[in-house]
């Protein structure tokens, strides 16, 4: 009996410990291939060259065009999702009836369950032609429609996390504001949002991290042309799209081209890892201020 209990506990522990093994494997895989990559291409070149053409005859290995593409689509996505998501959070908390809230929240979550390849199709076949009707010079592949659609996808992420943060603010603060004669709007922006700012910040950081790692929307709709630009109207390439592009082709294992996807992946991993841990840190530091 005793022995059996111990064996079971051991097995359960092993299952939990596997998660650490996964993290170690991810870091090891990315590092080992990246190290081989950087033994052939110096980090200085990687960070300072202004072109990314590892698949061409004349090879350039500057990651910055890919970073710029990722940055551009992410900024557009957040510019769409943050105002809308935050407004939804405030509206549901300060204005809407409780019954409306329970009805609308699962519907908003539907936005997050749609596969991203479907959003990509949407961006390419609906949003881009629509935008082209009034933005002359918008290319068939562009950062703008990919970013906008990505923003729609992450609305529920910002709205639900921000809503949690706002509803965690003690009632007494809201009532005090009303007692002073504030309108709901003044209460929301003068008291509730500042009080919930750390939670809202966490939601935005997690949304950024999600947008940075998003793959299929940008692979379908943003193009495959690494370009050091902040112009949202032309084709660009993100870090994730580059990895997909190489994976679709026939790049032999162990070649320098093969290693570029791990160097790109390492860059992506560093960004998302920093963002995620920043959000944990903020959460931990500011969470229980009101308890």
């Amino acid at each position: 009996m005793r022995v059996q209990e111990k064996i079971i506990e051991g097995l359960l522990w092993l299952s939990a410990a596997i998660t650490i093994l996964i993290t170690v494997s991810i870091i090891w895989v990315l590092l080992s291939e990246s190290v081989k990559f950087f033994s052939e291409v110096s980090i200085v070149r990687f960070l300072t060259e202004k072109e990314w053409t590892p698949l061409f005859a004349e090879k350039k290995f500057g990651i910055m065009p890919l970073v710029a593409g990722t940055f551009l689509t992410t900024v557009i996505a957040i510019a769409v999702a943050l105002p809308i998501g935050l407004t939804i959070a405030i509206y549901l908390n300060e204005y809407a009836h409780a019954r409306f809230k329970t009805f609308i929240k699962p519907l908003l979550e539907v936005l997050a369950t749609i596969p991203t390849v479907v959003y990509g199709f949407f961006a390419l076949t609906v949003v881009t032609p629509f935008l082209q009707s009034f933005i002359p010079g918008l290319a068939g592949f562009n950062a703008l429609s990919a970013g906008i659609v990505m923003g729609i996808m992450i609305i529920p992420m910002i709205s639900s996390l921000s809503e949690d943060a706002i509803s965690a603010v003690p009632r007494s603060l809201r009532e005090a504001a009303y007692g002073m004669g504030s309108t709901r709007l003044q209460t929301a922006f003068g008291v509730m949002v500042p009080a919930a700012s750390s939670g809202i910040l966490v939601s935005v950081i997690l949304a950024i991290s999600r947008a940075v790692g998003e793959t299929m929307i940008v692979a379908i709709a943003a193009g495959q042309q690494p370009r050091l630009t902040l112009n949202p109207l032309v084709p660009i390439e993100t870090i994730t799209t580059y990895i997909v592009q190489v994976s679709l082709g026939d790049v032999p294992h162990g070649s320098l081209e093969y290693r570029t996807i791990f160097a790109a992946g390492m860059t992506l991993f560093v960004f998302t890892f920093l963002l995620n841990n920043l959000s944990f840190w903020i959460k931990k530091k500011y969470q229980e201020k009101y308890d």
Partner: protein
Amino acid sequence: MTNSEKNRLKDKAFQVFGVFCTFIGLVVLAIFLIDIVIEGVARIDWDFLTSLPSRRAARAGILTAWAGTLWILVLSAIIAFPLGIAAGIYLEEYAKKTKLSNFLEINIANLAGVPSIIYGLLGLELFVRIMNLGGILLAGALTLSLLILPIVIVTTREAIKAVPRTIRDGSFALGASKWQTVWHQVLPASFGGILTGVILALSRAVGEAAPLIVIGALAYVPFVPRSPMDEFTVLPIQIFNWTSRPQAAFLTNAAAAIIILLLITFLLNGIAVYLRHRQQKKIKW
């Protein structure tokens, strides 16, 4: 206009804006779904569901794609669920509040935030190259299992956490061991919640294309996979492939395939929502 009138007007204006924002996403979604249905629904027929892929759009079907998706679902479930549920049980029932368990928690939260394409790179190196599996179903299922593992663990923990202390105490008082308590009391009581999380994890796996593309799943597979060691494609990859072709006929195919993929996704999510609803209604501790 007095100051307070102005403020009240602003308040009303924001309320209207709030309604607008709440519905804008849903309206866009509705437009999109209608667009997809109009474009694709006429293309769906028995032949489309049962034909092999073809270079000619009108003859191409999604048989291998949905068969591959089904395989991936079942295999990922078999791999990820025992592991994830066991890990969840350990963290919630066994782990003491030590530095190690704290680290485990942060680590799992971190894994949940790793972009799916990074899991693809992990699978490519670990399963495809080092274990020398190649771009086969098993490699794809292993990769997606790692991807959904954090979701399974987190939802299992939440379901177990909802089981009240008194049930465990009652079981211990009757002389049950720790594992007997977990197996006979805690797990049955939290089963609905765990199942909900598990189904949500699967619906996430169904829509993933990027990690499978990275491990080398092909877009063109002219046969239905018969074992985990076969090459494969899945619906999202088929959709991606058709979407990236210039001919309009392939876009119609993509729209039709999207309808099927969305049906699967909504079905899984619907089951999960229903289970959660029933759970909340049924159990009052």
